[in-house]
């Protein structure tokens, strides 16, 4: 019974978070999830035929991922100094779909819209640092056929815990659509269980 009550409480909390996260765009719902073990948050925007997911990643986790690829410590620390999200983008429609990260903008409180750093920009920096690795980051732009999806890291030059708004765009059947995450939050410096 206790487990049942806990499950109900978790579902109510999720419902509240979901409601609080509803985007102004009437046909997009943003769900917020909390990882029970780490306390880390993730957000999923569901549009007709298109979904976009942002998952908080801890700086130590980012260090582990890049460290394991054998990248120089300088690069590992550079990446861990960014606000990094695991990003999943999926074409759930019956037609083609495309996106370009260059079209996306983030806005911190009282700030101006800023472009999201692209994979191409990172690769140029990495190349200048002698690194040939070109994976892990969300591709700049993709043309998805039905059923295609992709994932990768999205990086923002923001401090741990910073809350911001993210405007994103995509094209479906030659029509450009847009959506907003009203309140994404960078991962904290350490997880709740540390």
């Amino acid at each position, binding site marked *: 019974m206790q487990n049942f009550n806990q499950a109900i409480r978790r579902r109510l909390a999720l419902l509240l978070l979901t409601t609080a996260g509803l985007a102004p765009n009437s046909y997009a719902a943003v769900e917020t*999830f909390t990882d029970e073990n780490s306390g880390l948050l*993730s957000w999923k925007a569901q549009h007709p035929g298109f*979904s976009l*997911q942002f*998952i908080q990643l801890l700086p130590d*986790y980012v260090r*582990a*991922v890049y*460290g*394991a*690829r054998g990248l120089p410590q300088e690069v590992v620390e550079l990446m861990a100094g960014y606000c990094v999200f*695991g990003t*999943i983008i*999926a074409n759930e429609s019956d037609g083609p779909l495309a996106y370009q990260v260059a079209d996306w903008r983030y806005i911190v409180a009282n700030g101006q819209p800023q472009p999201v750093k692209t994979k191409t920009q990172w690769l140029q920096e990495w190349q200048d640092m002698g690194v*040939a*690795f*070109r*994976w*892990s980051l*969300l*591709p700049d732009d*993709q043309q*998805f*056929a*039905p*059923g*295609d*999806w*992709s*994932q*990768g890291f999205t990086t923002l030059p923001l401090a741990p815990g910073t809350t911001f708004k993210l405007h994103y765009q995509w094209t479906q059947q030659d029509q450009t659509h847009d959506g907003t995450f009203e309140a994404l939050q960078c991962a904290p410096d350490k997880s709740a269980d540390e």
Partner: protein
Amino acid sequence: MTELLKHCNAHRTSQPMSSSFITVLLSLVLYILPAIALAELPSPELSYQLNRLETPVQAPDFSLDDMDGEQHSLRDYRGKVIMLNFWATWCPPCRREIPSMESIYQDMGDKGFVVLGVNQFETPDHVFAYMGQLSVFPTFPILFDPDSSISERYAVKGLPTTLLINRQGEVVYRAAGGRDFDHPEVRAIVEELLAEGSGSS
């Protein structure tokens, strides 16, 4: 790979916390745990849609080493239907789709179908350690594209990406993102491709 095996064997016969043991432990911490942690991130269900190219394109040839240092060229497999899968250990959907690739390979491997897993930017030692963590150990060839030059030639933007190459050496299907290759619809596509050129091969 053989280096890692040596490390494992050394551990069995040497004192606890020997340098070999520490090497294996470090491999686990540095390589495997981040991959497993990534695998636990929420991600979509694997779909099964493969997308037929409007115009088939000739698959660029390549020669890559497998885990034992043996070279495989694409042209060695001419006349077969090839599933060319670009992947890496840190990529969660890559991990999730491996059992389905192994399953279809096991069932159709003797009919002229082959799976080639082209790993990106990793070493055989690293991949071998990772394979030990999988529920299904792949028996199809795992090839190494250490500088990602082959994936670039195939215009691969994200991992995993999978291509189906027909018996004539043309890329005819493409899928970006993880798939369930054991799905009946995927099997039907492979069977169709096997049947297409079976008379001439």
